[in-house]
């Protein structure tokens, strides 16, 4: 029984990580219809940003959020404005460009760090709770808490603010939104920036948990794609719930089947969902078709 509870806990905590990484990806995916292959690298940049902040000014990774998240927001805005904006109606070229960005970022960090791996020390990661035989680390609990806060905050923002409403309008129909006087390009820039900032947030929160490597983004990105497709395009709660589903599947498959095959398990679920319900669990039916329609 305690093994079962342990597995559930591991799944929840993993789910928190995947959810956090996926929400930004899904925002970009849902609104701009871009498959951002470099999202995992944004997470990686966030982690190294936390390390850099620790190295230069000696701050705790949780404090470095104040610097890292705005920097990644700006970085995302620049990328969207100068690389992705010109490719708005070129779906093939978008994939091409974001993959180029992936190679560029990953190997730039590799070239600078020369493949050395780092960890950021924080006193908080030493704190562990013991709940009936289940051990929880505080740094993972913070991730879990953050994903809830981000999901609630983002869905509130999208529902109740004028900017959020314009984002939703652009998601539904680019052309009509433009006719209503919404600056579509501006909305895209903000959305992409927000997506990158969320990846940066995920990175800083994960920095104390993982050992950094330039290739670490790859661990998250395919999981994040699985989450996004599973949860539903453009849906914040879809990414939130999808993260937990994928995390649970990974934890259960890893414990009860074989730790080496845990990834196969969630890929299988991912592919089955993609086939049975391409719009995802929480996505609007036919949303995947909208993404393919020519929009100007």
């Amino acid at each position, binding site marked *: 029984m305690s093994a079962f509870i342990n597995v559930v806990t591991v799944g929840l905590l993993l789910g928190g990580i995947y959810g956090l990484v996926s929400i930004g990806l899904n925002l970009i995916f849902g609104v701009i219809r871009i498959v951002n292959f470099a999202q995992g690298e944004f997470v990686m940049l966030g982690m190294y940003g936390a390390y850099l902040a620790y190295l230069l000014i000696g701050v705790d990774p949780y404090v470095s959020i104040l610097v890292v998240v705005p920097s990644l927001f700006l970085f995302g805005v620049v990328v969207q404005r100068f690389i992705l904006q010109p490719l708005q109606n070129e779906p*093939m070229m978008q994939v091409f460009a974001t993959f*180029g960005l992936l*190679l560029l970022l990953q190997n730039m960090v590799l070239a600078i760090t020369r493949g050395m791996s780092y960890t950021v020390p924080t006193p908080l990661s030493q704190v562990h709770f013991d709940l009936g035989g289940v051990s929880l680390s505080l740094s993972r609990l913070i991730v879990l808490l953050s994903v809830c806060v981000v999901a609630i905050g983002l869905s509130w923002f999208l529902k109740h603010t004028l900017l959020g409403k314009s984002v939703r309008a652009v998601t539904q129909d680019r052309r009509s939104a433009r006719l209503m006087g919404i600056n579509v390009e501006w909305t895209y820039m903000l959305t992409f920036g927000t997506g990158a900032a969320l990846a940066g947030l995920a990175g800083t929160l994960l920095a104390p948990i993982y050992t950094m490597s330039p290739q670490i983004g790859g661990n998250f990105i395919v999981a994040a794609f699985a989450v996004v497709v599973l949860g539903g395009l453009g849906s914040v709660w879809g990414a939130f719930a999808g993260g937990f589903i994928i995390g649970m599947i990974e934890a259960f498959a890893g414990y009860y089947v074989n730790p080496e095959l845990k990834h196969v398990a969630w890929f299988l679920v991912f*592919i089955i969902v993609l086939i049975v319900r*391409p719009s995802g669990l929480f996505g609007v039916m036919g949303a*995947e078709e909208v*993404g393919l329609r020519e929009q100007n």
Partner: protein
Amino acid sequence: MSRTDTLPMPASALKAKSVTGLTTFDTELVRIAAVAIVLLGCTWLLSGQPFYMNILSYTFLFAALATSWNIIGGYGGQFSLAHGVYFAIGAYLAGNLYIRFGLSPWIALVPAALAAAIAAALICWPLFRLKGKFFGIATLAVSEVAFVLANYFDSLTGGPRGMSLPFKAGFSNMIFTNRFSYALLMLGFLIFCLIVSGFVYRTRLGYYLQAVRDDQDAAQASGIDVLYVKMTGMALSAALTAMGGVFFALYLRFIDPPTLLSLPDIGVRFLLISLIGGVGTLFGPLVGALLIVPVEFYLRATIGGSIPGGHLVVLGAVLILCSLFLKRGIVGAVESAWQSIRRRRHG
């Protein structure tokens, strides 16, 4: 085949366009022959230098693989990222047959092609319900699953430790002592892929594939069996890719999951080479490979040693720039430049 011109081959080649304005397969054959002669000449000239032979072998092999990918990815518009899987099927199958049964890799080409075609059909039959980027993401997942499985089933693949093929030189083993033979081998495979690709491009299957790519619903409405067309194109493309895997395995004589199934090195590379050269054109993938593979070798040799990953930084930047400024690839850019020159000349 829309063969309206009854002229003998050389004359139709001189005209380059037939009466209907459509280039026929015969014309493409003449072009392929010309390309083959030029490439053979270059290979011959450089034959004394093993360093260049290595680069040429890789260039020809990746040109062939990109040409194979282009059949379904370019003509058919199905953005497959899972071609590394078919590549790995070919390599592992040839390796196993060679090590366990001493079967000549030349013979292994046939089961490799068949196995990959069947695998492609099984994988893509459900996935073809997805379109565009969604198909791409799903095939990306397939590729990742294959990576995990290749590591897991180590009795078949050698797992993470990899699989070494013993060095026993000889034509029947497809293992040669001089690199010139390998370059010729890869060039032969490239020409074979170009002929198959050219045949598809200029015949019914190719036109159907292009119709499906441009507008699937319209293609369906005009009576094309969309699923059948996509499956045929994919199976053909996968079979060629697996044959490339056989050649690759026998060239390196060491295969492991990262060399066969890594996305940036294999799966995405086929697509990038095609895109840079000109996706959906017959010679685009070849042009892309001629440019990208030697440049990569050069960069790896010059900056890869002192700066880890340095050559991939440059490659990443090149990709971004190409996607921004070279949207139809090099072949597309040359074509539109040529057309604007002609338009100016004819008023």
